[in-house]
Each structure stands twice: as C-alpha cells, then as structure tokens.
C-alpha cells in the first residue's frame, strides 16, 4: 500500500480499523448481534451510508443473511464474539462447502481473560474443524490490512475466511492510515444447485473441493507475507501470533521471529526453515496450544509455555516467565467488581425475586450481575436463552420448588423465544420474567426488534413482546413496571402459585437510555 500522509492518520480501535478496512474493500452488507468485544465493528460500519448494516436477531441469522448477500454478488461480513460463533456454527460448517461468490468474511473476537464473557474458548480450532483459512491481526493497523486480504482470499479460493481478533486487538487503539473506498466488480449472481444445495450427493463433491482448496490455501500460507520471518540474533527465536507478538517484541527486541498472520492452514515448511535458524525456539501463544500441538507433529524441537498459562490472558509481564519455563503466578488483585447501575430497574425485579426466595434461572445480560452481593438473587447463567430453557429443565426434577426463569428483552428475541415455544408445547408450568429495559444494555445500548429502531436509529416495524409470548402459547402474559413494587410483587406471587405457564414482562427503560438522549 502507498504511504499515506500524516494528516490521513487517525486513532482507531482494532474494531474500528477493521471496519474502515472493510469499507475501503468495498463491503456491501454487514450483519451481527452485539457482543463485547466485537460490538464496535458493526457500529462503525453502520456509519457508512454505502453499507447495508444490520443488527440481526442472533448470530445464526446474521451469518446466513451475510452469506446469502455474498452469494448474491456483494462483499459481505459477519461479526461476532467467540460465544456468538457457537450460535452460528450450523451454517458456518456447511458454508465451508458451499463457498462464496463475492467475498465473505467471518470476524470473531475472542475474550482471553474473560473481561466480559462466560468462557474463554479459543476460536482458532474452528478453522481446523471447518477447514477455513484463519487470519490473526496483532494490532489495529494490521486488522485494517488483514480484512482487505481476507476478502481477496475469500474470492480467490471460494471460501469464507475467518479473521480472529481478541479483546486486546479489538480494544487497542493505534494511529492508522485511511485510504479510498474501492468497490471491486461484482461477480454474477447465478443459480448453481450443485454448489448451493447441500444434499448428500452435492456435498460429497463439495467436500472433495474443500480438501483440494485446503491444499491450495496451505501453499498460500507458505508464501504469504502475512507469515513473516524477522531475523534477529539467532540465539532465541519465537513463533507467535496475535497480540502476543507485540508483547514479545517489547521484551525481546533482538530475538528472531516467525510472526504468523495467517495461522491456518499451517505453513509447515516455513516453520521448519525458521526453526533451523535459531539456537533455542519458543512457541508462545495465548490460550490453547493451537500452534504448539501442530508444530509438535512436525518434529521440530521447541519450548512452549507452562500449561498454567493456557488459562487467562497473557501480558508482557508473562513473557520472561514463559521463556524461563515457570508456571503462572496467580495475582490476586482486588478490582472493584461491576454491579447494576444505581437506579437500574433490574434492582426492583430482583428485590421481588429475592423476597420470594425463588431459584432464579438466569441468562446473559446486565441482570446477570444480580448474582453478586448484595442482590445475590440469580442462580445460573449458561448462555443466551438458557434462562427460559433451564427453567423448564429445573422444573422437571423439582416441580414443587419455586423456580423463575429470567431473560432480557434483547436476549429473549435472540434465543429465548424458541425456549418459550418449547415450554408451551411441552406443557411446562411456571413463570418466565422478561426483564425488558428496552435496549441491549450490557453491550452499551444497541437496538433490537423490540425497540422498533434499526442500527441507525431509524424507525422500523416493532416487535411487541407480549403479543409474541401469547402466540408462543403462554397461558398468561402480564406487563408490569417493576418500579411499582407492590403491583409487581402481587403479580409475581399470583402467577407463581398458579398451575399455568406465565410470562411477566417487567418493563422499565434502562437508566442509561435517558442519558444517551
């Protein structure tokens, strides 16, 4: 890329830089469901009028819409956090077979250290599992460059491409050079049943294609400049990727590096060649032994981090310990824990639940924080939608106990609604509380179908939750303001003692919504 003038440089987070890169690459359609640390990708893209950006109701939907757009001939992007990718795994696995038409890129943001997530899964394994190429930028400037390469690879090899971010790449800011938007010529939109209809006969042929493609991608991994050897003094060498590269460069500026920007398929020849140039070789990566386990199979001798470092985020301080082969020293730092905001309507809902002494099956959202003291009134949290389905499951073994399922408004639309249909269909009794604060609060207040506004705050068709719940088959649907303490407690008490499936929509807007106006 041509060198830009200083005046063209702006301070961008990894998510913003990636969005600008995609914009410049001629991106046409972008879909996501909000989730930290990935949210700002779509928020930034929505600022470009040339891009059709949407908050989808969940990741599976987002993935399928974006992939469909790519097949129609426009470059498209799907973004999510690591746990969101699990929701989209069904279409993802088969999209590796169908391939794309115009470029299609999956951006997934992992959260090592679980700053705001329920687990710290290492999404790189999905690349092996789905046989897709994987790019790993280590900084915002690289995120911008890599997303553009991702579209090129996608089109050239007819494959979805995964770009894996982590919290420290997504939420780091760097000075980044901006460029012009260039929309590539659109490929034709054609019917092609053997490619897009994945019945067993067609899929068999496509699996042959996928295996051949993997071979070609492997050749690309060997020659791409994204897998870069930086010769050093030769005494020690590091094979590394993502932000870990940046930490190492600070601590060991004179060492030799094989910096993997395209970490799957593995560039075996390059790895073996690099290993020969250094006296002592280290493989340093965050979370799982993804590179480690493969490099072992090449017969290359190296030292890896102590397994204790597979847990949590790496930091520049960890580097000397890793090189010395030491175990992780767990630091106990008393950080101020997050809690529900002052004046949050969820306080009122949980006060009523606490008084009732019910087991509360929780879900993903601000209200998950109600598990902490002084509230301590939420007793499970697994994944999106599980507040509704755990309620059903818990009741199977404990039909006489007071059990209430809670779920947020955005989460209910995401994946609570199928659980409610299931509960009604299977004649489950009990109370589901939809904590409706009229926004996706945990990720910073995004719109969803229930708010009646789009990602650009434009009015759209509004989903009426109470109508939807009735249609799902709930026996009773009440809408109550939790701030009306007496009325709320009365309804809760009444419904919990009935032999019916009841939904109580606990509706009061988020405290932070007012501040945004």
């Amino acid at each position, binding site marked *: 890329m041509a060198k830009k003038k200083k005046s063209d440089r702006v301070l961008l987070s990894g998510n913003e830089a990636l969005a600008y890169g995609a914009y410049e690459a001629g991106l046409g359609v972008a879909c996501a469901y909000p989730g930290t640390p990935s949210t700002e990708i779509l928020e930034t893209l929505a600022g470009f009028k040339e891009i059709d950006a949407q908050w989808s109701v969940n990741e599976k939907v987002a993935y399928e819409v974006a992939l469909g757009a790519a097949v129609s001939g426009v470059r498209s992007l799907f973004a999510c956090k690591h746990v969101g990718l699990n929701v989209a795994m069904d279409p993802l696995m088969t999209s590796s077979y169908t391939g794309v038409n115009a470029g299609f890129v999956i951006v997934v943001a992992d959260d090592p250290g679980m700053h*705001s997530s329920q687990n710290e899964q290492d999404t790189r394994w999905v690349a092996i599992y789905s046989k897709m190429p994987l790019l790993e930028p280590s900084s915002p400037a690289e995120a911008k460059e890599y997303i553009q390469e991702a579209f090129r690879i996608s089109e050239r090899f007819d494959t979805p491409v995964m770009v894996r971010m982590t919290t420290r790449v997504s939420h780091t800011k*760097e000075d980044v050079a901006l460029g012009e938007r260039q929309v590539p010529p659109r490929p034709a939109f054609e019917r092609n049943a053997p490619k897009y209809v994945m019945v067993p006969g067609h899929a068999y042929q496509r699996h042959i294609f996928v295996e051949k493609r993997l071979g070609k991608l492997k050749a690309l991994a060997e020659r791409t400049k994204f897998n870069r050897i930086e010769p050093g003094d030769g005494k020690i060498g590091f094979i590394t990727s993502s932000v870990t590269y940046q*930490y190492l*460069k600070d601590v060991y500026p004179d060492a030799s590096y094989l910096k993997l920007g395209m970490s799957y398929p593995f560039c075996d020849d390059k790895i073996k060649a690099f290993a020969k140039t250094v006296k002592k070789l280290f493989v340093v990566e965050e979370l799982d032994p993804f590179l480690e386990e493969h490099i072992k199979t090449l017969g290359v001798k190296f030292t890896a981090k102590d397994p204790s470092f597979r847990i949590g985020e790496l930091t520049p*301080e960890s580097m000397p310990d890793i090189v010395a082969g030491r175990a992780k020293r767990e630091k106990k730092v008393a950080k101020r824990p997050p809690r529900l905001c002052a004046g949050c309507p969820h306080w009122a809902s949980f006060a009523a639940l606490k008084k009732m002494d019910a087991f509360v099956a929780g879900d993903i959202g601000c209200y998950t924080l109600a598990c902490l003291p002084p509230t301590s009134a939420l007793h499970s949290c697994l994944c999106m939608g599980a507040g509704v389905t755990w309620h059903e499951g818990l009741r199977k073994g404990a039909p006489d106990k007071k059990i209430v399922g809670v779920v947020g408004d955005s989460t209910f639309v995401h994946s609570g609604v199928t659980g409610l249909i299931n509960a009604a269909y299977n004649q489950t009794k009990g109370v589901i509380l939809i904590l409706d604060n009229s926004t996706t609060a945990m990720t910073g207040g995004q719109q969803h179908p229930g708010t009646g506004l789009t990602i650009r705050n434009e009015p759209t068709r509004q989903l009426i939750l109470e109508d939807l719940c009735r249609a799902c088959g709930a026996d009773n649907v009440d809408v109550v303001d939790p701030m009306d303490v007496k009325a709320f407690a009365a309804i809760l008490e009444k419904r919990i003692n009935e032999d019916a499936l009841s939904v109580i929509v606990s509706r009061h807007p988020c405290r932070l919504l007012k501040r945004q106006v």
Partner: protein
Amino acid sequence: MKDTVYSITFGGIGGQGVLKASEICGWAALYAGYHIKKSEVHGMAQRGGSVESHLRFGKRVYSPLIVAGGADFLVCFHRDEQPRLKAFLKTGGTDMTDFLDKVQEAIDDPRSLNTALVGVLSPKLPIDEGCWMKAIETVFKPAIVAENKKVFLMGREIGRP
C-alpha cells in the same frame, strides 16, 4: 524524535471519563507525529467497575499494555483505585494523583476533572500546546470544546514546573 516510549496509565471508576482522558492524550500524541498504542477494556465500564486505560507513544511502540513498574505517569481519578494502580508506576515515575485535591478545588463541574488532570499532565509530555488543542477539538462535541479547552489550560497552568 527520540526513541523513547512514553507510558501513561489512566485509572478510575466507571463514569469518570477515564477513557476520554486517555483519548485526548492519544490524539495529541498523534498530532505530534508519534506512533500510538492505547489499550482499554470496556463492556463493564458503565457499571461502576474499575476502569483502566494504557497509553504508549513514541517512534515505534509494540505492546499496548504497560508492564508493572513500567509507567512514566499514573493519572488516577479516584483515590480508592490509586493503591492498585500504583504498581504500574516505575521508580521515579510521576503520580499525578497527588494533584487530585488541587484540581478538584479548582474546577466548578466535577465532570471536567478528567480534562483538568490531563491539563496538569500536559507540560510534562513532549507535545506542543497546538496538538493538545486540536485533540480536544477532535475528542469532544463542538458544544463543549471551548469549556474543555478552558479547563485544560487551567490544569496546564497548575502543572507547569
């Protein structure tokens, strides 16, 4: 330009403008021609949790995170967070938290604490006043730029050696 990398740790609790303060410094450093890395974790910030932002700038910067004992400056907006964040400061580093009381006295609106304290820090950094002004114009909405410039310059006076 020297090869020195400047490392500043900003800290406080949600709602204090910790990220905004590091944002002003980041843009000012950008306008002064430096390479910048700035790290922050959001998601929980609005909910009163600890907020921390790391800023590093120089000719070439790799890690966006500052190691313990690696910060030249600590800019902390809440006393309770100071003991925890003090670990970032290098021997001989400057703890701007010492100016907290003085700045709080000097400002009318508690919301401008962040800009004021950045002003106090500003004379200690190799960045021209023009770059700071431009950064404030970039970071704040037009309606509150003038007010923030004023508060910044007041802090800058306090910080002058």
